[in-house]
């Protein structure tokens, strides 16, 4: 009975979404408020119904209702409580329902926040949001029905993919989808701006916080994904240029470009067309990413494979892109910018270059990801490009972007005079150059590492110079040091929030550089009691033990790690044997540190416990990446605070 209620709720929600979308459009067109109000009620109804459906699906998981095909496919009686909840969005159908629920929630927030302050756009924003919702609801009724019955109902389910039994699966998909779906709102506003011919900066200022929040969640989703890869998959890496990772990275790149280019429009009335194009591109890439991961066109480590859903997404994607292009063509005359570029040495052109590089990086990732499809379609050969391709093209772009991160926020608008350049950049450049020399003297051999670290120091120095100067200015007005600093952060929260986010990105850059340049690893077989040494760490194999968990068996190795200082450390990597799988899954153990992580993977072992093959890694500076995520969070929190500048 419950699955039928869930299915019914989704059907009614679909009808309501289609109705609401049309009603809001009519309301926007005729200017009659009653239609818009009716659409609002429909949107509220959709939210309640999708919430109900989501709750019912969760309930089906909690009570092991194996008569539901999706439940039977993704859980079994041994699945622990928490993972029964995360299993709800562990595969295709559930991820779509989570996605729809998030858009419905965002729609509700839009209604609560903007029904008064964005009146001209508002009806059309509702139309777009409800149309997107209708699409996802359609997907849930035809190609990916979460409540589909399985007859006869099996006595036990097949269980969750063991790799997904991890706390990262609680947060990673949720953050990622909050990011993906978050870009629907700026997209809806952009389309509304085109329809109403109000392509000025009103739609941008209204959606500023939306964009930052969506961008933040997408960043967080990517970082947590990296963390999951690092501590679950057991290869000691956090990023593999896997198609699924790329699918999430592309909208991040264009979203980052958008986040910066809107500032130019706000300040200089330029780039109107570009901004709308960017947000349409970002939204399209979130759909494209879903298409890539859900349609099975690309074989990937964690791509879900499913039949007709690919066609649905491709059709919807085509509708979105063609519709947006048609609208852009219709509004071509409105989209000419008023400002113009005065000089190449200016903040505008720095931001422009930043945008070009970000979009170029997105294009590179796109090209590398679809290259196998292109090659097979045009030349009939199966060929792929791996990490070397992505690295060789993107590393120069990213280095350029880090450099611009230092230049952009400080250089003058319009035209930077020599005086302005010297005033802002003399110290940071000097510090950067000195840093490069110091790193070299400290024995950093890789030129790439020296360059990246020096650039990072340069950018950090620009931020420090700016902050010190502003603090001193307030100090001259008689404020004490600490209140002056606090006042700056609060009153110019948007600027300094941006700076803090930049610092977070720098930490990630240092982590990536360090781990690439200085990580070391070894793989070998140890007899019981035998030790090995790597990078100052001595690892002794003490033995194996077996245990039985709720849904699997586990063979755990005990290893004692010493490095000459501090207490010896015990690491217990394991192999987990899930009864329904032919081969075991590794369970990594590690000790994280600011300088380096000791990372141990149990490979093969002798059944009598006399020997074990291990992969031992000392990974350098990886923790800085996760630390960068924390700093990103702080910066975002600061940036989205209400602006207080005017009252100051």
């Amino acid at each position, binding site marked *: 009975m419950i699955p039928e209620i869930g299915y019914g709720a989704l059907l009614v929600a679909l009808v309501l979404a289609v109705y609401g979308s049309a009603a809001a459009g009519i309301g926007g067109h005729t200017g009659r408020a009653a239609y818009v109000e009716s659409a609002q009620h429909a949107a509220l109804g959709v939210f309640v119904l999708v919430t109900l459906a989501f709750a019912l699906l969760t309930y089906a998981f909690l009570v092991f209702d194996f008569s539901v095909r999706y439940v039977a496919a993704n859980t079994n009686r041994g699945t622990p409580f928490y993972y029964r909840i995360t299993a709800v969005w562990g595969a295709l159908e559930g991820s779509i329902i989570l996605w729809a629920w998030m858009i419905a929630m965002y729609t509700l927030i839009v209604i609560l926040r903007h029904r008064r302050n964005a009146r001209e756009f508002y009806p059309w924003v509702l139309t777009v949001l409800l149309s997107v919702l209708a699409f996802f609801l359609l997907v849930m009724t035809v190609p990916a029905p979460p409540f589909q019955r399985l007859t006869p109902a099996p006595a036990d389910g097949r269980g969750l993919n063991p790799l997904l039994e991890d706390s990262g699966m609680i947060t990673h998909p949720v953050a990622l989808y909050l990011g993906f779906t978050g870009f629907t709102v700026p997209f809806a506003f952009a389309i509304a701006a085109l329809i109403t011919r109000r392509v000025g900066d009103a739609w941008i200022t209204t959606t500023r916080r939306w964009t930052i929040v969506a961008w933040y969640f997408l960043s967080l989703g990517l970082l947590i994904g990296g963390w999951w890869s690092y501590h679950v998959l057991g290869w000691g890496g956090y990023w593999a240029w896997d198609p699924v990772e790329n699918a999430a990275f592309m909208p991040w790149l264009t979203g980052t470009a958008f986040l910066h280019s809107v500032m130019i429009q706000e300040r200089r009335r330029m780039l109107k067309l570009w901004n709308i194009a960017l947000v349409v591109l970002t939204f399209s890439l979130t759909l494209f990413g879903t298409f890539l991961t859900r349609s099975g066109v690309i074989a990937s480590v964690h791509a879900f494979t499913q039949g007709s859903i690919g066609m649905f997404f491709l059709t919807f994607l085509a509708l979105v892109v063609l519709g947006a292009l048609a609208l852009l063509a219709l509004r071509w005359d409105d989209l000419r910018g008023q400002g113009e570029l005065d000089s190449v040495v200016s903040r505008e052109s720095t931001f422009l270059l930043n945008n070009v590089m970000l979009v170029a990086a997105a294009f590179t990732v796109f090209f590398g990801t679809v290259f196998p499809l292109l090659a097979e379609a045009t030349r009939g050969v199966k060929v792929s490009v791996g990490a070397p391709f992505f690295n060789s093209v993107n590393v120069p772009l990213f280095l350029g972007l880090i450099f611009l991160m230092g230049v952009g926020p400080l250089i003058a608008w319009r035209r930077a005079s020599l005086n302005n350049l010297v005033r802002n950049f003399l110290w940071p450049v000097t510090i950067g150059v000195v840093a490069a020399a110091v790193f070299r003297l400290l024995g950093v051999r890789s030129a790439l590492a020296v360059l990246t670290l020096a650039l990072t120091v340069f950018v950090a120095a620009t931020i420090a110079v700016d902050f010190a100067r502003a603090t001193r200015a307030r100090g001259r007005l008689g404020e004490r040091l600490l209140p002056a600093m606090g006042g700056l952060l609060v009153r110019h929260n948007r600027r300094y929030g941006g700076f803090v986010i930049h610092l977070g990105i720098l930490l990630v850059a240092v982590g990536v550089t360090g781990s690439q340049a200085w990580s070391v690893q070894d793989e070998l077989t140890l007899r019981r009691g035998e030790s090995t040494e790597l990078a100052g760490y001595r690892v002794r194999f003490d033995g194996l033990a077996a245990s039985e968990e709720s849904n699997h068996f586990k063979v755990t190795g005990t290893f004692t790690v010493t490095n000459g200082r501090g207490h010896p450390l015990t690491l217990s990597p394991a192999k987990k044997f899930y009864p*329904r799988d032919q081969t075991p899954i590794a369970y990594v153990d590690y000790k994280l540190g600011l300088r380096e992580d000791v990372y141990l993977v149990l*490979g*093969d072992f002798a059944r009598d416990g006399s020997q074990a093959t291990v992969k031992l890694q000392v990974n350098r500076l990886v923790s800085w990446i996760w630390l960068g995520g924390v700093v990103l969070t702080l910066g975002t929190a600061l940036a989205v605070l209400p602006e207080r500048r005017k009252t100051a």
Partner: protein
Amino acid sequence: MTTNKHRKLVAGLVIIALALGYMIYAGVTQSAVYFVTPSELKASAVTGKAYRLGGMVLPGSLKWDPATLDLAFTLSDGTATVPVRHKGTAPDLFGEGRGAVVEGRWTADGYFKATLIMAKHSEEYRAPHDGSGAGYKDLMKTLRGTDAR
């Protein structure tokens, strides 16, 4: 925007586009790896060239020496077989009778030297095979008797 500035801007963008185009072209030619089946590799193997070879691990062909970390097995596509050698443990989900993709080079000594092994796995799992759990129970029993102390 004056035409002169416009020209400069367009010129700048063209230069960037050309540079990117070159980087992508160079990247693809340097790192493109062809995906081949054992039959295709047998038909036209170029020694020293990088390939991705996909096939099934032939049952009974897997040899593993923990002391030297030498892993050897045979990949088959039903018509042809290719001997593969690798240094290091196999990844999770790798095993006889299962699909695997290996990346590496064809050597003059008549075997494929793999630098990377990828086991195929998907989100959607098949139903457990009958009695497959029994073997593990056995294993557990053996291991329980062998605690470190």
